[in-house]
């Protein structure tokens, strides 16, 4: 139960046998499936449908159960992500500082709607509900980078 799982980037896990050995390390941990899905999603940016039979086998549950867990959580994706993700906070504290207008401006800047991606697959705009930066909103997250007091100009993809 207290078994520590390595958090390295080792193993790309796309090959079923590699995937099997990587996932096995999560099985005995409490919340193992969540740890495993978080790890896959973090490593690859998504969870490929072709991995689901292996995941189900490792955790000894049905494929439907695995899909059920994946579909419940906003973070888990079944499609590869765009090169960059711009998450725009849509919650109240940011609304009070113009997040609705900011969202429109960012949509215009990149030419994609919230929840969609640009045709060249470079940028995906995503809604997020609170980054905990509510005192210095509106807040945006570009890939890993947090941005307070965000304006359309302060959103650049080179900040990675």
């Amino acid at each position, binding site marked *: 139960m207290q078994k520590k799982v390595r958090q390295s980037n080792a193993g790309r896990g796309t090959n079923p046998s590699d995937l099997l050995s990587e996932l096995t390390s999560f099985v005995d941990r409490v919340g193992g499936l*969540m740890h495993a899905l978080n790890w896959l999603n973090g490593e690859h940016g998504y969870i490929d449908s072709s991995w689901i039979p292996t995941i189900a086998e490792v955790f000894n549950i049905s494929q439907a159960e695995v899909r*059920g867990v994946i579909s419940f959580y906003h973070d888990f994706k079944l499609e590869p992500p765009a090169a960059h993700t711009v998450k725009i906070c849509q919650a109240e504290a940011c609304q009070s500082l113009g997040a609705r207008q900011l969202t429109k401006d960012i949509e215009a800047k990149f030419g994609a709607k919230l929840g969609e991606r640009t045709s060249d697959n470079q940028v995906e705009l995503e809604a997020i509900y609170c980054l905990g930066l509510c*005192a210095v909103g509106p807040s945006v997250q570009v890939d890993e980078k*947090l941005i*307070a007091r965000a304006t359309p100009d302060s959103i650049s993809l080179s900040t990675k």
Partner: protein
Amino acid sequence: MKLQISDDSFARAMGSENVEFAFKTHGVEPTRNGSLGLAWLEPVVQLLNGDQEIVSEFTNVAVEEVPKIVAYFQSMRDQDNGDTNLQDATESTTSTHPFLTQQHRLVFDRAGIRPPLDLPSFKLLEDLLTQDPNQIIAGMETSGLRGRGGAGFPAFIKWRTVADTPADQKYIVCNADEGDSGTFSDRMLMEGDPFKLIEGMIISGFATGATQGFIYLRSEYPVAKEYLDQALEMAYSAGLLGKTVLNSNFSFDIDMLIGAGAYICGEETSLLESLEGKRGQIKVKPPVPAIAGLFEKPTLVHNVISLASVPGIFEIGPESYAQLGVGRSTGTMPFQLSGNIKQGGLIELPFGPTVNELIYNYGNGTLSGRPIRTVQIGGPLGAYLSESEFDTPLTYEAMAEIGAGIGHGGLVVFDDTVNLKEQAEYAFEFCEIESCGKCTPCRIGSIRGKEALRQFNSNTVDARTLVVIEDLCEVMEKASLCQMGGMTPIPVRSAIQKFPEDFISEQTT
């Protein structure tokens, strides 16, 4: 002399990483500290003398200012021969700022003052581990601590229930799924003083007989994860966690699970399902988690601030703790001031300040400079207050009297450009997005409510639609198992009742 830079999510979002990098390129390696919670002044750079006293401070530091600060730092360092009476030294503006000096910090006493990963003294914990666990629970009862996550349930009842329920395994679960907009105290504590949380979890484990703890942290808080990962590793190395906690006979472990972007997992039964690796769907209570929680074992579920309040209670003594606050709202509460506010951040005070005091005395009015129209208290399921309610004291009781709740202590300020119909619509929309889907009124009612409010292209809704919405609210409130559906009517109704002018136009009335 050393140069210190604030490092937490606020500071990073305000540009501290670039500033830190600029210092490094100028040959100065800054040390990192947490944030004091004066968010609008981030990032903060401090120059400390050999006695760790702040001799100079710079706020809102931009990369362009770095060369100037480096030159200043070097000249100060050259002058400094243990002599703290330096020329040109400016006082610290944050530590003497009324925003901070008027506070009463018990949970956040170390955050932003001593670096988050400096191992603090565990004398108190050592002492508590020699006491009778029942005495500790009695102390919790005396303190009057009520859960800080939102429900305000007396903590000791849960502690006693877990302690009194026979089982071969009991658990402590820290709910760090702080998803309410306008709240960030859990995040700040985990980033600014992670050992306070760890200590609180160990004390609660010892008192209730639980030997395994879990922290369920939301994925939107990667900086908190960074700090907790390091703090947990240090705690194991220091013998604070593991088979013999501080060389006692008590064994306690903590593992951490990162969530995956589901707001509903802040609800305790949903959180426990997710912690078991399942869909975060809520469960019927009873049985309460204190009797049958994680894997059907007795489980103490508390939010971060509840657990982090525990060391402070025994530090000053449960009786003294109970003296703080008003009536049955005892102790201190880390309020969080946010939204359209000039001076937003963390304000820890004994219960009882009025909304006015926080938004004007501490917050100094709106960032936009326009008048304040409403304040939403207690997150997305909290009430919108009208100006006439701003003189209400922030206690559980006084808030309940006006149909509001303190929730997790967040206050979101809106200026007079806010449209409450839009906000009511958003309340339904948020419920639609985040509903776990178990209860029909929440799953379907939220969509129907949003549609009803949106069905007119104009900015107006007719009186009949409002009757439909009130019906929906009643069904959601009475027939949802948890507070997601049950409390969504609170922001909706408060918006309609207190700001009717935003809902009914002159033509339709």
